[in-house]
């Protein structure tokens, strides 16, 4: 329980602050980012819920710019890693180097890699080898990095935002399920609408520079994360989240036929955690103090789509994870009890 939230009034005030801060950050990000409201909301939700985000979209849609502008808006330490096939784990974690001492002589010191930041943009993460990709696993889940015999804690808030291109698959290494599961959301960055094209062109082809103002600090983000975790979840909503996750698992009691026939691997309990955390943010943004079933359903696609692994038969039939999630949402009603 958050010690600062003693009574209902304090909770009300914290919720109002949360909403206001969210809108402020969002306003700054959308100054640079045209359209893609769902993606912006998703990234902010993941940041405030304490999760990581995987952005998938073709090149040129502003994925990198979104993350960069977010880093500027919240005044966090931002680093960018462009993953390549020849990248080694030491390139992102850091390595021990021989340093000159002031008084003469040398000593071995640790040179931190780009993973030591608050916001890490892992650009085209699927171009790195599995060995390098797995270097991020510990950082994402444990918030720490172990190099040699040293374990270094990462500074909170810590958020990895990875991008990958769904089209160019040659020479890439698809993320393993274990790493995919560590991302709270997977957001699909789609093409902008026609009106948004004009806005993009007006902003980017003129001499006007868009300066993003930092409206929040890392400390405030940490506080907002505590507020999110303080939001209660009614038992029937929790049951709904559990059943939705179970319904993605083939052979389970709630799984629809589409999942049974085409899914080889369903969501883990991390999926249920993601549903509740994302639902809490949605409830606060909606001005409520508890999560309802609509909050869970609203973020189900972002939470579950990368946790559902389609089998060969499903891929041959053109079944997508989003279709499976749709079937799951249709098949699982909100528990009446």
């Amino acid at each position, binding site marked *: *329980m*958050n010690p600062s*939230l*003693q*009574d*209902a*009034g*304090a*909770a*009300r005030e914290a*919720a109002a602050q949360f909403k206001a801060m969210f809108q402020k950050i969002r306003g700054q990000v959308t100054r640079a980012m045209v359209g893609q409201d769902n993606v912006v909301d998703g990234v902010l939700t993941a940041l405030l819920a304490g999760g990581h985000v995987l952005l998938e979209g073709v090149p040129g849609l502003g994925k990198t710019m979104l993350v960069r502008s977010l880093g500027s808006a919240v005044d966090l330490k931002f680093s960018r890693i462009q993953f390549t096939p020849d990248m080694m784990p030491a390139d992102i974690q850091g390595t021990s180097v021989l340093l000159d001492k002031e008084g003469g002589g040398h000593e071995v010191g640790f040179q931190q890699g780009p993973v030591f930041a608050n916001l890490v943009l892992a650009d085209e993460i699927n171009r790195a080898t599995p060995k390098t990709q797995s270097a991020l696993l510990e950082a994402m889940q444990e918030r720490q990095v172990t190099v040699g015999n040293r374990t270094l804690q990462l500074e909170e808030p810590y958020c990895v935002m990875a991008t990958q291109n769904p089209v160019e698959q040659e020479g890439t290494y698809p993320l393993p399920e274990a790493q995919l599961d560590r991302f709270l959301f997977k957001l699909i960055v789609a093409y902008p609408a026609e009106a948004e094209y004009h806005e993009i062109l007006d902003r980017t082809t003129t001499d006007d520079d868009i300066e993003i103002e930092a409206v929040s600090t890392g400390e405030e983000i940490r506080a907002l994360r505590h507020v999110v975790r*303080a*939001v*209660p979840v*009614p*038992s*029937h*909503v929790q049951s709904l989240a559990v059943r939705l996750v179970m319904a993605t698992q083939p052979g389970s009691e709630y799984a629809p036929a589409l999942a049974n026939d085409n899914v080889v691997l369903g969501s883990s309990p991390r999926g249920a955690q993601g549903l509740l955390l994302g639902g809490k943010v949605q409830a606060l943004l*909606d001005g*409520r*103090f*508890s*999560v*309802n*079933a*609509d909050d869970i359903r609203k973020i189900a696609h972002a939470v579950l789509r990368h946790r559902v692994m389609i089998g060969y038969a499903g891929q041959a039939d053109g079944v997508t994870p989003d279709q499976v999630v749709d079937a799951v949402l249709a098949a699982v009603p*909100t*528990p*009446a*009890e």
Partner: protein
Amino acid sequence: MNRGSIDAIVQRATPPLRKERARRAWRRSLAGSGTAFILGAGLFLLLRQSGFALGLFPAAILVIGGPALLWVGGCWLAGLLAPVARGEALERVEAAVHARGRLRAADDFLARGPSTAFMQAAVEDAERFVETAQRAPLPRAADAPVVWSWREPALAAALVLLGWLLPSVPSPFERAPREVVAGTDAEVSPRRSVSEEARRAERRAPPETTPAGKRDARRDKSRTASSDRYATDDTEATRGTRARSRAGQPGEGGSASKAAGAPGSPSEQDPAVKKVEKPKSTKAPVRRDPPKEAPPSKPSDSKQKSGMTAGRGSKGGSTRNPTTSNWSSKDKVPDDDQKDLESDDDVEDEDSDSEARGGVQPNLRDRKPPVNRDLAIGFGNRPSPQANGRGGPSQRKKSRGTASLVLGVPIPDHVRGNPSPGRTKVTQERVEPRAEESEPASAAARGRRNAPIGSVATPDTSPWLQRILKEYFLALRADADASAAASSKDSE
């Protein structure tokens, strides 16, 4: 705000929800009522075939009003009586007042005890919706569309019609008695009154002449036969038969062998005659004695001398050795009369099976020796000479049945065929390459092409190559022309 106010909301929302459920249930049940129609029609057919005389109107009530009404009413009642969950009621109320889950959450937190600041805030937040929820009318949910198909009712109607028409088709049973009772009302009355007339005639006419009476006659057959048997009980041969009977009821012994009683060639006979003859055939051993013992049965006795006696003989408890009879009648397909007779025999046997076996030889024709279950150990190392590989400590069991299909069961595998010639031995030796004589193919032997070559891609020659080639051939030709001119001058 306490939980009682939410209870009041739930209680207010429950009755309309129940009615709505019942309404939805019967609307949904209409889709399944077609099946009920067909079931009712099937029931009608069944009753009709069982002999119940149903008019069209009662049939319609039975088909339409019975199962369909029962089904729809049952669904409606089930929907009405099904309990309404608290959450469902609150959800409906929330939809009416746009509370967006606040009431359910507050109800849940109140039940748990609002322990955190956010829970208290959630409960307080829901309070402003409570008063509205207690007054707001519940929105009526959209009714499910009624799914109704005329296919099933039409099929049910067709079945009813079929059931109505089916009994009017005279069966072979009914045809023969109508000939017997020629001249009666049944002959001239319409078809639909056949069964009623038959039933009426059953009451009037003697059992041999009416169709229903025939059935009665069959039912009373055993009684008649036994009375006949008792009538001729005093003969010497019968006494002998009775002496072998365990229960002392020789007539009933005839039904012991069904196989012998079923087929045969009695179809040549009139059923009425059969009835007369049945007791006599029971006395088959008697007829093998001097004929003076049974003068009235002599004609029929000569008629069914061999196969017929065997076919129906068991009815009479024939003691002839079954292995000596030709059983030619077994291959014949029994007609309906015989089937009926046989089934009647079955019915009669039910109560007399256990006590009337005596005096009749069972049918041993197809009997096989029983499986040897001897568990005796063999003589020393040798297996028992009586062992047949099926049970007991005998030789290795034969692989039969499912066990032979199961992997892991050791089954000797013998492959018949010629012995293998052995492995192929390959030896390698190093040899020096030797020249071989070969005949070069001459180009002249190819002959001319006798078909067009088709389109041949012209190789692209560069201009300088074309020029060189042109100059070369011109020079060659010029030299040839010059030498030709010189040679011509020399010759001149």
